[in-house]
């Protein structure tokens, strides 16, 4: 019997890579399939991040393994148009990452403000 728990624990509360963060953000409002994810990520990042199919599906495979996302079976789900949705674990990770980024931004703003005042 294979165990997945140790890997999940190891991945918890590690800063997320940008593609992973953008995928989680894109799935936060609604389930999306691969092509829709790519387009949404491009839009979210204002055209800065354009994931290749290889990168996207590498990240999706890891996120499925870690159970941060799951397959979403809609009524019209075809074999080649599989949608994905965020799990509660994925949602928690996204919240944690956004909180971490807010803290960093606050700290950086404080430092920059004090530098300007000198």
């Amino acid at each position: 019997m294979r165990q997945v728990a140790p890997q999940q624990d190891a991945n918890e509360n590690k800063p997320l890579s940008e593609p992973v963060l953008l995928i989680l953000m894109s799935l936060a409002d609604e389930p999306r399939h691969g092509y829709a994810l790519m387009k949404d990520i491009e839009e979210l990042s204002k055209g800065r991040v354009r994931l290749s199919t290889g990168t996207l599906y590498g990240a999706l495979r890891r996120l499925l393994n870690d159970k941060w996302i799951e397959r979403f079976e809609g009524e019209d789900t075809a074999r080649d148009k599989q949608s994905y949705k965020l799990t509660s674990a994925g949602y928690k990770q996204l919240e944690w990452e956004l909180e971490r980024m807010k803290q960093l931004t606050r700290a950086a703003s404080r430092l920059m403000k004090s530098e300007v005042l000198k």
Partner: protein
Amino acid sequence: MQIFHLLLRFYPPEHQTIFAPEMLAVLRETACEKRQRGGSAYIRFALKESFGLLRGAAAEWVAKLTNGNYMANQCPPGQAEQESSLPAEVVKARKHVQSIVAHMENAIANHQFEKARFFSYAEQEARERLRSLQQKYKIVE
């Protein structure tokens, strides 16, 4: 698209089984969009995706060889939920159909049309067997 078919074969077999149809669908849609934007956009896309697939395949092999949980508990979309409640012979017949289809697609991709025709007949027989089993167990597809 032939080059993408070929490059996807560099991925580990488990990855191919689960993600290759989706990846091809994404590549097809993106290719269609880029073609409309002109030749140079399409060439840039083809180069970027080809390198991406090669890099992705290498990364997946590294993950497979270093991670005992690689693709743990993952199966093709929709299969897991259904299979747990299906009779064993139906599951077996369904897998047989999938395997024949995979062989047929492979033969077509390699331009082995005689072989593909053989698998096409085999697929019809396998589907017939699956249909009769589904009728036997009153399973609606």
